[in-house]
């Protein structure tokens, strides 16, 4: 792996923060890959922050009267968390400009949503927040379906995955929306893909995002034990396989360019990733679906052939 950010304070696992800013005992599922990414995100973001949330799994993090946050939290609705961030940021700026808020009381404004909100009804609010140059950090945990309601197909569900609404022999007929590319097309300050299973890469990207101003968006693949069908203890392993098979490219968009921050050679066959998840079991039994497996492998190979 090449070190693309020599100024980073995160060089190895031992450098990762362990202040446990986010409280434990929340109602997230065991092995939640989204929570793993968010925990680290929150550690680096720091407690002088407000997290603006859209409807999704993580909306239950704060459940009256309990909250795991050392900073602030605002639940909005499914479609408009970036607009909530706009209102908070604007209000803080107004209060600062009018001398009604000291710099110490100011907050970093973050948005936290799932892929369903991010890629569907919340996409227009996100795009418009980028258009306005809103100074915020957005973390999307992508569990590749409407996870909170039982894993129905969402715009980010991968091709071939079986979901609660695509139960047929070929799973989801659609293709996973490339939200990274959609976001980057809006030309924000920074976009990156991350995953909890690559914690140093994740910490560096949050650190970089935190050091910049304007719209900064992070997309975390979030292995989901109940939604994808694997044992919670395998969550990190599934995440590693997503990266090592090339299914989940770790990349960032900054200054108009896309850079891959970490990649493995040779890539492992995609099959190794798929076979561990019940949502792809129909590709292996009762008969191997060689055509679909080859199609998925080819899509990954084509992606890397185009960028390498």
């Amino acid at each position, binding site marked *: 792996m090449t070190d693309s950010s020599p100024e980073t304070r995160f060089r190895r696992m031992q450098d990762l923060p362990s202040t446990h800013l986010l409280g434990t005992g929340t109602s997230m599922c065991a092995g939640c890959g989204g929570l793993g990414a968010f925990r680290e995100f929150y550690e680096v973001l720091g407690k002088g922050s407000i997290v603006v949330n859209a409807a999704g799994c993580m909306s239950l993090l704060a459940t009256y009267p309990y909250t795991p946050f050392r900073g602030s939290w605002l639940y*909005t609705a499914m479609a408009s968390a970036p607009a909530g961030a706009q209102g908070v940021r604007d209000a803080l700026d107004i209060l600062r400009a009018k001398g009604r808020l000291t710099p110490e009381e100011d907050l970093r404004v973050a948005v936290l949503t799932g892929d369903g909100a991010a890629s569907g009804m919340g996409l227009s609010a996100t795009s418009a927040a980028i258009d306005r140059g809103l100074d915020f950090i957005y973390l999307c945990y992508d569990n590749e379906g409407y996870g909170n309601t039982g894993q129905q197909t969402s715009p980010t569900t991968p091709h071939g995955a079986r979901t609660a609404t695509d139960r047929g022999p070929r799973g989801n007929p659609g293709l996973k929306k490339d939200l990274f590319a959609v976001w980057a097309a809006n030309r924000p300050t920074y976009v990156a893909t991350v995953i909890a299973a690559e914690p140093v890469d994740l910490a560096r990207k949050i650190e970089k995002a935190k050091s910049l101003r304007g719209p900064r968006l992070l997309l975390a693949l979030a292995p989901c034990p109940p939604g994808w069908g694997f044992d919670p203890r395998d969550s990190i392993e599934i995440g590693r396989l997503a990266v090592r098979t090339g299914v989940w490219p770790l990349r960032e968009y900054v200054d108009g360019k896309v850079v891959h921050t970490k990649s493995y050679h040779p890539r492992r066959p995609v099959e190794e990733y798929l076979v561990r998840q019940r949502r792809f079991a129909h590709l292996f039994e009762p008969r191997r679906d060689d055509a679909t497996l080859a199609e998925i492998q080819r899509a990954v190979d084509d992606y890397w052939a185009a960028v390498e």
Partner: protein
Amino acid sequence: MSRALLTGNAAAAWGARLANVDYVPAFPITPQTEIIETLAGWIAKSELDARAVILESEHSMLTAAGAAAATGVRVFTATSSQGLLYAMEMLYAVAGWRAPFVLVNVSRAVAAPITLESDHTDVLAARDCGFLQLHAATCQEVVDLVLLAYRTAEDPRVRLPALVNLDGFLLSFTREPVDLPDAEAARRFVGEFAPGAVSFRASRPTSQAVAVLGGGPYSYFRYEMHRALQGAAEVFAEASAAFAGVTGRAYDAVETYRADDAEVALFLIGSLSTTAKDAVDRLRASGVRAGLVRPRLLRPFPRESLRRALAGKSAVAVLDQDLSLGMGGVLHSELAGALCGVPGAPLLASFIGGLGGRNVGVGELVAIAEEAREAARRGTAPEPRLLYTESELREVRKLQAIALGERHELETSHD
């Protein structure tokens, strides 16, 4: 105090300006757009120390409005019709944040069919969301009710957002003479924005609008909102008394006109009440003891004031400029609810009129008052009536004839 000739839209903008708003999240929609353009113009010229931001939808606009209010600034925003409906999810949500701000709705009928002209079906769709709801009848009331709305909404006993309605076209684009309160007097009347317990600060982390589990805590918070909104009637009355001390203009929750000794009352809201006063005068001139009862406040619903105002009347003609499809007039059923079980309550006659800008003239108001009076004599309420004239029907038949004729022409020319 200064006197100016203002449209209802300009009056709404003046209300926001005199309230010293900090933040104006906005989205254009006819007939409201002039309000946000006026405010943006003042901000650009530094006549108003505020920030205006154009959101990409009314749903986002209401989210930003609530979020900014919850962060501790005074917020003003405005919309109409489809915009209000598009924002509806957030109206319900932000009311629960207990972060007060003012939303002006310039009422306009809702699609389909789509139209630009006024009725109240849009604003009455927001009656259950937890906002205070005030209805202006004149451009003067628009300015004054915006100021009263801020003072009432921000009161620690209330802390709920407020919606001030003015009728599209009839008020929004109509110039009337308006007495603008002195800027300093208005500033003192509204006071500084006090965020109360709701605000986000680094030293005071807060989790807002969080989930609850179970009906117990849910009901608790909803009941609290309901009680605060009910209590807002008294707060509004106090604010109105203070406002009268500053401007000489007093606003009761319910306006009455020649109603004290009336046997029949017209009951309606908004700018049509100006016409209704003419109708009352004409009825009086012909020997009918008529009056007008017009609520300014619809939420909280001024039940006691209405019971008092209508005590002793034999009949009430309720004119709804809205239509709850499959039910009828919204004001009619609300008033019926308020009078239910009151001994000697007047007979109610329900009329629907004024949909999508349909004109309701003095003659029609006189006629419905007389019909209600006749019904009271008979002792039975008439069937709800959808007001429509023969000439209006003839005009629609003409349009249909053109549409059918043109279609026929198209179809035969293809052969």
